[in-house]
């Protein structure tokens, strides 16, 4: 219990502290320190769960099970590494006059608040609180996306706010319907929205209401996950916001939104004994994979390119959870972890690369490897990992998803394979001149943060070769839970 309070308390207090202190020279350091404390608290929580199993605490309002424990740890970890990356990155941005001290204060405070909302969404047992936390996450990131106050960033933030606002309103309606169905079984009051309670009685929930609720919930949280055709906000928000924000948006927020979808799917599946929820998720997932793969080759902006790649991967994961079964779910969870680590590593490298070349347009970036081999290789290896090259973790999960698809949904396999091949061709052909060839990169005034990039890549490599036994255990248990 103390661990959960610490996991949520550190970022919240950190946000207040950083808002109060303002843009001091040591504010980035405090940001890193708070993120480190959050990570340590998350590690303690993880250790507790390893020792004692699932927790349900504080009047049943918070709970930790194998499904969310690794996501909490992942969120805290990527939150920490991103804060390390953002230290030199934001410093360079400030020196180049793109940021003022007031904006930096807003950035640091909102960064911690954003971490808080994501962790709250993951740990909350109450579906209503989950919704509130997701909406709060939208609000904090709107401010982060519009940080530069350029016309393009304002447009991106506005689009993000309106689209996700509408989406999340659909999810609220879905939550109301869920409560409506639950109230008839569990009685009115706080208990009827608790996921653990709902899960215990899911067989008795009214199937018609739950099917309708799931449509609204999937559309709502799916907008935040970036599923096609609800993905319009995602590339803009990723491309126009500061790069650390792109890294946490892609690496963490999409995961959390998908987590919400899957939690809802478990309930609906238990009540509606048809493949309705599965088919809906598979449809959205496959559409996202295919559309995003085709969009990749049309991108001229490097950050947009990787934003579309995030849509593609969210599609793959949604498809995997849609198929269901122990192997596909296991692969989906593994893919969630590996994608989030790899994609944030790529954004770290991309961030410094755009600073070196002064543009984020693909045509303007050339020959990174000549000036800084570490960064060039980081970007190349990260991209190969995200494209599913062995021996990285994404290869393992994509392979598992593909073989399950071949066995259970053979019709979908050609689409998946074709999309993966198209994505591969598009990304490699665009990346090759950026990394190799004549250079136009310059040296940066501060040492770029390359440690987070390689830490993440090493972890992804490890996931491809060897999954720690307790992690595999959680994946297996969570896969059984998801069904």
């Amino acid at each position: 219990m103390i661990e959960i309070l610490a996991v949520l308390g550190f970022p919240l207090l950190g946000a207040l502290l950083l808002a109060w202190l303002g843009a001091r020279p040591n504010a980035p350091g405090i940001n890193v320190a708070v993120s480190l404390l959050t990570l340590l608290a998350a590690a303690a929580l993880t250790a507790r769960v390893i020792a004692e199993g699932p927790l349900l605490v504080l009047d049943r309002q918070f709970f930790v099970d194998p499904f969310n424990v690794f996501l909490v740890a992942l969120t805290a970890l990527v939150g920490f590494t991103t804060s390390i990356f953002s230290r030199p990155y934001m410093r360079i941005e400030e020196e180049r006059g793109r940021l003022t001290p007031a904006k930096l204060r807003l950035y640091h405070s909102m960064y911690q608040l954003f971490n808080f909302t994501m962790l709250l969404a993951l740990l909350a047992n109450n579906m209503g609180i989950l919704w509130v936390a997701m909406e709060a996450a939208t609000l904090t990131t709107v401010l982060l996306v519009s940080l530069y106050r350029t016309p393009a960033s304002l447009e991106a933030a506005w689009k993000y706010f309106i689209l996700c606002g509408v989406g999340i309103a659909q999810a609220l309606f879905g939550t109301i319907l869920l409560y409506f169905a639950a109230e008839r079984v569990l009685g009115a009051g706080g208990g009827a929205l608790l996921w653990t309670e709902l899960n215990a009685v899911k067989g008795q929930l009214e199937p018609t209401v739950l099917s309708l609720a799931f449509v609204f919930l999937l559309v709502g949280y799916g907008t935040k996950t970036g599923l096609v055709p609800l993905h319009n906000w995602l590339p803009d928000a990723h491309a126009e916001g500061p790069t650390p924000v792109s890294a946490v948006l892609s690496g963490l927020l999409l995961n959390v939104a998908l987590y919400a979808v899957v939690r809802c799917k478990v309930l609906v599946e238990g009540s509606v004994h048809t493949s309705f929820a599965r088919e809906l998720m598979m449809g959205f997932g496959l559409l996202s994979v295919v559309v995003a793969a085709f969009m990749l080759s049309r991108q001229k902006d490097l950050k947009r390119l990787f934003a579309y790649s995030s849509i593609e991967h969210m599609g793959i994961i949604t498809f995997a959870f849609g198929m269901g079964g122990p192997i596909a779910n296991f692969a989906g969870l593994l893919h969630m972890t590996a994608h989030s680590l790899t994609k944030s590593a790529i954004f770290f490298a991309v961030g410094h690369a755009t600073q070196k070349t002064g543009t984020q347009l693909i045509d303007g970036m050339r020959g990174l490897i000549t000036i800084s081999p570490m960064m060039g290789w980081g970007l190349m290896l990260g991209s190969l990992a995200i494209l599913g090259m062995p021996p990285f973790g994404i290869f393992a999960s994509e392979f598992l998803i593909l073989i399950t698809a071949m066995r259970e949904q053979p019709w979908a396999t050609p689409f998946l394979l074709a999309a993966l091949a198209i994505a591969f061709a598009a990304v490699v052909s665009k990346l090759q001149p950026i990394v190799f060839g004549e250079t136009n990169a310059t040296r940066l005034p501060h040492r770029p943060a390359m440690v987070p990039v390689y830490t993440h890549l090493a972890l992804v490599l490890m996931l491809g070769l060897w999954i720690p036994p307790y992690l595999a255990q959680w994946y297996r248990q969570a896969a059984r839970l998801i069904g």
Partner: protein
Amino acid sequence: MTAIPFYAQIINLLAALLLLLSFAMLAQRRVLSLVNLFAMQGLSLALSTAIVAYGTAQPHLYWSAGLTFVLKVFLLPWLLHRLIRQLDVRWDVEGLINIPTTMLIGIVLVVFSFNLAVPISELASTVTRSTLGIAMACVMLSFLMMITRRKAIPQVIGFLSMENGLFFAATSATYGMPLVVELGIALDVLVGMLILGVFFFQIREQFDSLDLKHLEKLKEGE
């Protein structure tokens, strides 16, 4: 057919009023009147919630009614009025589609939502179940308002009135959500509105107008 209790009749009346106000908002061309209509919608929502609380003896709904009253009748309209004064936009509602057509689409949406609500309201045990269709229609109409408006402020009012519709749906289907959730939602709406206020100024500073056609530069390709 059993007699409908008196308080339920009042609720039905207020529900009808809510729907009427949604249509009025759809037809309104002036931003200031739009804000006033929004405040009236909030008022009828708060009243109907209070009456449900009284009629069904659900004390927690009084809190919800009070919250709606403070937030949606005073605080948000006041914030919007201030914004409009400071930004000096008064005659500012421009639609993408003309108003009669929007109204016709609105009617179709109402029919659709009533049909959608039938299976659910049959299951509901609340006295207010017949108003669920109206709540859904309000959500749909606000949605329509959001997509057919060009300017930023009417879009936001559409968003807020969608929230009204959702609250009404929660009250009529289930006698309201648990209090902690309602508090959270109210907080989110308020914070969202404050952020948007700041945001409007930034947009204006950048583009010298709140017309969203300036915000259509980010496109695919090119």
